């Protein structure tokens, strides 16, 4: 079966700092939830940004396909990239909401890739689109805040709104770039539960970068580890041993005690989180 995300021989060089990504080959299949781990600067965020074409790879250096559509090839963005982006929900570490817009307006931007350009440009959204946006907000338990400014919310709430924006795209793939790195532990768990729910109940493909190894092991069935722009490990989460982690992170601090076996997670419904769509 054709993989949902298909990265071939992708390289990226930033200025004189050398290679950020080095001949990356990676396939992600439909319905997988993959955790991308690695130390700071290993290239995990850079890789994710390449997949949706926010960054272009080196010239003559491979390409990225998502859902069978080319996103970029040899450092050039595909002309139809917007249609494919509309099918990819992207979640950022810093949420990237528009602060001065209300929560519902932010969520409605999730429809921009699908509705006629003139309507989106004029900011004219139909009732069914507004209903969809409200439904997404309800899914992440944020419907009460619909008409507040995004800037009034806490970090965890903003990230849930950002997920609602991604859900409003009705995407086939979710890319989450350090979605919990700026959040407190409780919000982090809540956001990861939502992502996990989207994966399990809607069958979406999820690729998430994380710098907390325990989160990656608990939530993702498959883990890909990057080190200095190269893939060092790509296997089931259970195969990730302390020895390997020490290799990935260049430390000696991982041992059997610091790395308990992945706990069996029971999906707890988040406040107001409707599990069935």
């Amino acid at each position, binding site marked *: 079966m054709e993989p949902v995300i298909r990265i071939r021989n992708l390289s990226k060089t930033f200025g004189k700092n050398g290679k950020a990504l080095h001949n990356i080959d990676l396939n992600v299949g439909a319905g997988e939830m993959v955790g991308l781990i690695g130390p700071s600067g290993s290239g995990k965020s850079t890789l994710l940004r390449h997949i949706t074409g926010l960054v272009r790879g080196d010239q003559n250096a491979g390409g990225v396909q998502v859902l069978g559509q080319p996103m970029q090839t040899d450092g050039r963005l595909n002309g139809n990239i917007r249609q494919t982006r509309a099918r990819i929900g992207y979640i950022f570490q810093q949420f990237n909401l*528009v602060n001065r817009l209300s929560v519902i307006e932010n969520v409605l931007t999730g429809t*921009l890739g699908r509705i006629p350009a003139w309507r989106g440009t004029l900011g004219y959204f139909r009732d069914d689109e507004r209903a969809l946006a409200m439904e997404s907000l309800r899914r992440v338990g944020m419907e009460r805040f619909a008409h507040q400014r995004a800037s009034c919310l806490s970090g965890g709430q903003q990230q849930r709104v950002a997920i609602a924006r991604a859900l409003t795209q009705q995407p086939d793939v979710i890319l989450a770039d350090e979605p919990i790195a700026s959040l407190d532990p409780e919000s982090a768990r809540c956001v990861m539960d939502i992502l996990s729910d989207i994966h399990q109940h809607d069958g979406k493909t999820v690729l998430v970068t994380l710098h907390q190894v325990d989160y990656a092991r608990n939530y993702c069935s498959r883990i890909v580890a990057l080190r200095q722009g190269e893939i060092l490990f790509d296997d089931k989460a259970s195969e990730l041993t302390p020895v390997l982690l020490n290799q990935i992170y260049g430390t000696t601090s991982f041992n059997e005690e610091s790395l308990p076996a992945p706990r069996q997670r029971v999906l707890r419904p988040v406040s107001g989180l409707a599990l069935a769509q």
Partner: protein
Amino acid sequence: MQTASAQPEITAIPPGNSWMKLFGWGLFLAALAWSWGGAEMKPQALWNDADNMATFLGDFFPPDFSEWRYYFSEMVTTVQIAIWGTFLAIIFAIPFAILSSENLVPWWVCQPVRRLMDASRAINEMVFAMLFVVAVGLGPFAGVMALFIHTTGVLAKLFSEAVEAIDPGPVEGVRATGATSLQEIIFGVIPQVMPLWISYSLYRFESNVRSATVVGMVGAGGIGVILWESMRGFMFAQTCAVMIVIIVVVTALDIASQWIRKRFI
């Protein structure tokens, strides 16, 4: 450690060359001295001709308000010139500002547009007013056009500086949904710069009301025409009344626009 002692010691006095500072001050003072001659500075004239000035000032008082209705109706025209001059400028400054923002367009778009805006900003309103009086005839419309062209250049620069200072994150957030470039600007950029744009626009409106009072002097309508005529006719009591009208209206508008600005920030 050996290597640590080799490092220069960090002192409380910041490193740097103090002679460069002295040189800077010297250059500044030299510029002042150099300009003294060219500007024919002669402060003693203020003392020597004090009697003349007292007589001249005396002619201004008491102000002659006998035609105040006329003055006020011309002042209203002046404000109307400023309203349209500023409004047109805002409308045109928005696309020009976007096109001259380095973070949104490639350099080969941004640089030419910036030069065009430089040009329209470099020429004073009064010069444009004289040109438009020739082109569209005497009257307020020439004033509107003069303010419009000059203010477009000013606002485009101020607007684009605001755009260049935005947080790129939200724009990427909108881009990632599959939005078009125009939608990225409308949903990602404009909401971020709106408070500054409103503030700049109101400030330019205030200063355009002031400018509109003088474009009339070259025949471009408004209260400037009366100001100029009364001065040329040595009717200084009337000049004084006109100036008081200008001060009152400009002050009132400044206060009003400050009040509006506070609502938006």
